[in-house]
């Protein structure tokens, strides 16, 4: 009988990351996944990255995850979002060939000797000394990571048709209740939806606005050549709904499962179906519809912006009312899926369940939406399961240093009434959580894994070189007579540079692009340096002052927030209200910051804890 160190249930984006990171520690890892579904498949939008999410993909990559690598391989259109709005809010997004993405994921995992892929439906899980996972066969493991996505009690809706399943054409898992009586799920089920898929040959692209791929976007994986493309590049197209489209939807209100009471789950407000848009914004009839290719070989496109659970005939009618889509054919109809999510306040910052030790949860089952959010959690759960097995320090990312940290802290502090998606607005430290400095932010965390793979060597070298170039910028003075100053002076009177200044000071000037400026300075001195390094140093210098100011403000709070607390001692103490004790017992905060985030916690309790903790 083989005993796994870690068994991952589910082969989606969270599952792949969990298994991939855990395998790097040379442990015996297994993935149990539904037969018939390839690893790392993309059942919804065919893209990876986005505002805030681009940072997450790069964080995953720098910690040793798979998503950035796979997205580069399968990337067929690259874009930088918020290109004109400053470096701190710029994010990369890649349209992927979803077939190729899964093929790459299968290849990556199958080449790793210490990962076993088991294609069986899980029927039950129990725990004695070891976890016993029963599908067609029995498997034993020291730890189990649940990454079951929308498959917990999944139910699909298209018009009045509703079927059991986690995804179109797929079976579902049983309820969590059957598997674990000790795991609490949220009483509110969640709902998500997906649009119909169109035949790409039946679209009149001449009527749509083209969005070509941007060759200047850096690949996600840090060891990839920055601008090399592994696949042929194609365009996305922009279409728009009109008055007629919205009328069709509005006149079919009683046939919509979302509005006639058939669907009980809560959808995300940031991801409304076209029905939502029609009824919540009656004055608006023009909505963007992005036509995104799903693959080079696949004949479907994904019309982003019109997800729907309306009956098939209505879907066809409203799609064909859109300019450019008049004769388009629907190949797969849109649907909504309702599913159970676990109560994430019962999870610790390592994503381990606080009652059933050795059991981890990651991904959509935790009530998040998005491949990137799922992958980020998968990595945290996988790494922590491995680190715990090896008796190493846990991986807990600070919310001040990473978007993954923001997400995990938000998730474990409170339950939500809608699926959780990352926005940059959720971070207090947006100026610092950038794509360009991801390697610097993640290196200290990765270093604690005590691994020595090519990634680790690259990160170490990168951070050393960063320090050298950063010192160069601080210490190299440009004299007031230098032609460089004239060259970098701006148009206005206030933009005339006449004083001797360091390169770092020069990079702070508002009218200069710090990256091209630093490149020019370096070439002036005849120095050639790697693009990634130049970018990281130049942008860091630009924001230095702001980051310092806001970090000064946050310093005290941060210190407080990071302070580890003993919730059991707090609950056991006398002078805290009953209600607070209940909440603390439920959420089990590990840091002062987490305690503070709990809804309805009283200032008095915080004061009591603070006075004792510090």
């Amino acid at each position, binding site marked *: 009988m083989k005993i796994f160190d870690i068994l991952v249930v589910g082969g989606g984006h969270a599952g792949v990351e969990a298994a991939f990171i855990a395998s790097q520690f040379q442990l015996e890892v297994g993935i149990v996944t539904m037969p018939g579904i390839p690893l790392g498949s993309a059942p919804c939008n065919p893209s990876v990255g986005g505002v805030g999410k681009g940072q997450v993909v790069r964080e995953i990559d720098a910690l040793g995850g798979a998503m950035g690598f796979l997205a580069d391989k399968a990337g067929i259109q690259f874009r930088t979002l918020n290109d004109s709005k400053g470096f701190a809010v710029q994010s990369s997004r890649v349209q992927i060939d979803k077939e190729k993405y899964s093929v790459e994921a299968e290849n990556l995992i199958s080449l790793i000797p210490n990962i076993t892929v088991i294609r069986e439906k899980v029927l039950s899980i129990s725990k004695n000394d070891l976890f016993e996972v029963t599908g067609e066969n029995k498997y034993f493991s020291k730890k189990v990571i649940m990454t079951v996505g929308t498959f917990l009690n999944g139910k699909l809706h298209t018009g009045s048709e509703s079927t059991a399943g986690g995804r179109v054409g797929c079976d579902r898992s049983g309820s969590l209740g059957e598997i674990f009586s000790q795991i609490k799920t949220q009483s509110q089920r969640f709902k998500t939806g997906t649009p119909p898929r169109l035949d790409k040959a039946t679209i009149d692209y001449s009527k749509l606005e083209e969005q070509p791929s941007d060759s200047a976007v850096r690949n996600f994986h840090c060891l990839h050549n920055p601008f090399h493309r592994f696949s042929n590049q194609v365009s996305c197209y922009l279409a728009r709904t009109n008055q007629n489209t919205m009328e069709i939807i509005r006149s079919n209100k009683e046939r919509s499962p979302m509005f006639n009471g058939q669907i009980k789950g809560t959808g995300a*407000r*940031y*991801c*409304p179906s076209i029905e939502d848009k029609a009824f919540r914004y009656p004055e608006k009839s023009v909505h963007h519809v992005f036509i995104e290719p799903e693959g080079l070989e696949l004949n479907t496109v994904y019309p982003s912006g019109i997800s729907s659970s309306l009956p098939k005939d209505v879907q066809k009618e409203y799609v064909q009312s859109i300019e450019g889509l008049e004769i388009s054919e629907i190949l797969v109809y849109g649907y909504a899926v309702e599913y159970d999510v676990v109560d994430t306040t019962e999870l610790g910052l390592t994503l381990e369940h606080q009652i059933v030790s050795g059991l981890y949860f990651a991904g959509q089952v935790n009530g998040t939406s998005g491949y990137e959010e799922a992958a980020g959690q998968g990595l945290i759960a996988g790494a922590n399961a491995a680190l715990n097995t090896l008796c190493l320090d846990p991986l807990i990312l600070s919310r001040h240093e990473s978007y993954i940290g923001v997400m995990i802290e938000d998730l474990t502090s409170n339950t939500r009434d809608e699926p959780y998606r990352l*926005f940059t607005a*959720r971070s207090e430290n947006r100026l610092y959580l950038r794509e360009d400095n991801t390697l610097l932010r993640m290196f200290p965390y990765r270093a604690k894994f005590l691994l020595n793979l090519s990634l680790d060597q690259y990160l170490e070298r990168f951070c050393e070189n960063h320090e050298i170039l950063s010192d160069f910028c601080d210490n190299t003075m440009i004299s007031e007579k230098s032609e460089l100053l004239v060259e970098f002076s701006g148009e206005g009177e206030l933009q005339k540079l006449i004083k001797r200044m360091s390169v770092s000071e020069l990079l702070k000037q508002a009218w200069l692009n710090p990256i091209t400026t630093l490149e020019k300075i370096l070439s002036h001195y005849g120095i050639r340096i790697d693009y990634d390094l130049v970018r990281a140093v130049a942008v860091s210098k630009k924001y230095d002052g702001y980051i310092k100011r806001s970090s000064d403000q946050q310093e005290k709070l941060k210190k407080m927030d990071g302070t580890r607390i003993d919730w059991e001692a707090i609950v056991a103490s006398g*002078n805290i209200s009953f209600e607070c004790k209940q909440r603390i017992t439920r959420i089990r905060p590990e840091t002062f910051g987490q305690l503070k985030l709990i809804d309805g916690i009283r200032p008095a309790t915080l004061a009591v804890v603070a006075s004792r903790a510090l």
Partner: protein
Amino acid sequence: MKFLYSDGPIIACSTGTNTNAAMAVIRISGFKSLHQFKDFFTKDLTGPIEPRKVYYTSLVLQGQFIDDVCLTYFEAPKSYNGENILELSVHGNVLNVERILGLFQSYADCRSAGAGEFTYRALKNKKLDLSQVEGLDLFLNAQSTYALDQGLSLLSGNLHEYYLELYDLFLVHKSSLELSIDFSDDIGEEAAKDYYLKSLQQFTDKFSSLVKRVGPMGPNLIQPEIVLAGLPNSGKSSLFNFLLSEERAIVSSRAGTTRDFLSEYYEIEGVKYKLVDTAGIRDSLDDIEAEGIKRSKSKLHSGFFKILLVNPLEIDDGLHNLLQNNFDLIIFTHNDLPGFEAARERLISIYPYLGSIGAINLLEVSRAWELELKALVNKKYLYSIADKPILLERHKSLILQAGIVLSRYQSLATSESDVAILSHELNTLGSCLSEILGIVSPDQVLNSIFSNFCIGK
């Protein structure tokens, strides 16, 4: 306020325990269930008691009758401070009230409430925000109808509304910035920019009318003071006594008799002023007197209406220093002494303004003059409140501070294309405002975005 208080039921007499009255109201707050008081009333408290309904019953202790009371139960969270509250109307004899308070403290585990503790709990349970608590304080302790109105206004009236509106406008503006970062794909660049500028304009307009109500940091209008100032032995105490028609201050010809300032209420047109007789301002070796003088100087600074008494026959550096303050009225004293007229003329030739601010001689002070004085003070008061000034110092200084940050942000809003930097500056403004308006959290920003804009795929 520090978190000195522990949880658990507290009790207090809400109507004061200083004098006997027909009735008194006793409140108990923060108990878990009415059941714990079941032994104290003839009415069965374990049966159904409808909240907010008055029950007539007898208060008893171990079967012995104590008082006839009216009992009202306010069930959490629908009560003043969000906790369970039991309100008892009892007979208002001080001894009776004290006996009942003692009874609940000894036999029902209630603790005597600290000052402001009911309201503190209301703040804690988010029934009131800090501005409202300040408003309540102002309302309960107001010395003028204007302060009374402003207290009410902060508590639930138009100033409170104004702050809420300002909060909403700030939230909308912050949302518009976040919208352009996280959702520009959904909204479109131009629409996002448009929302941004429009919401900034709306916020600034609203905010500037608040700034107008702050003005420079002026005299204290919550407790306006009429301050009598002058060198030692200039006759301040004589005037003080005359105005109060009593021998309140010890008058003597020895300079330095008044060691500290004395104050009494002095009412003009419904406003209760504090009339302050300051210790004579002079350099003194006497420690107690020196302390009195220090305090007098600060009274001069915060005083609302300042009267200077001058003996023109005694001019020294102390007087020159005093004259650096702005006085509303000058009274010349000792006009019965020889050489007074010449000395007065000489002083006015050095300080011409002394002649122009309603100067009179102390001997001319009469009841008719007192009416003129009252009219003068009242005129200044009406003028001061004409622009509806914000009374609370904390609000004034925060608003002024936020105004400075706002103008810096406004100039950046048109010149800076880096939205992350803009958002950083906006957060600085937000933390200034949060102290009067409340904190704008990321969740509130996202909620505002989702409810106002069509977002998503």
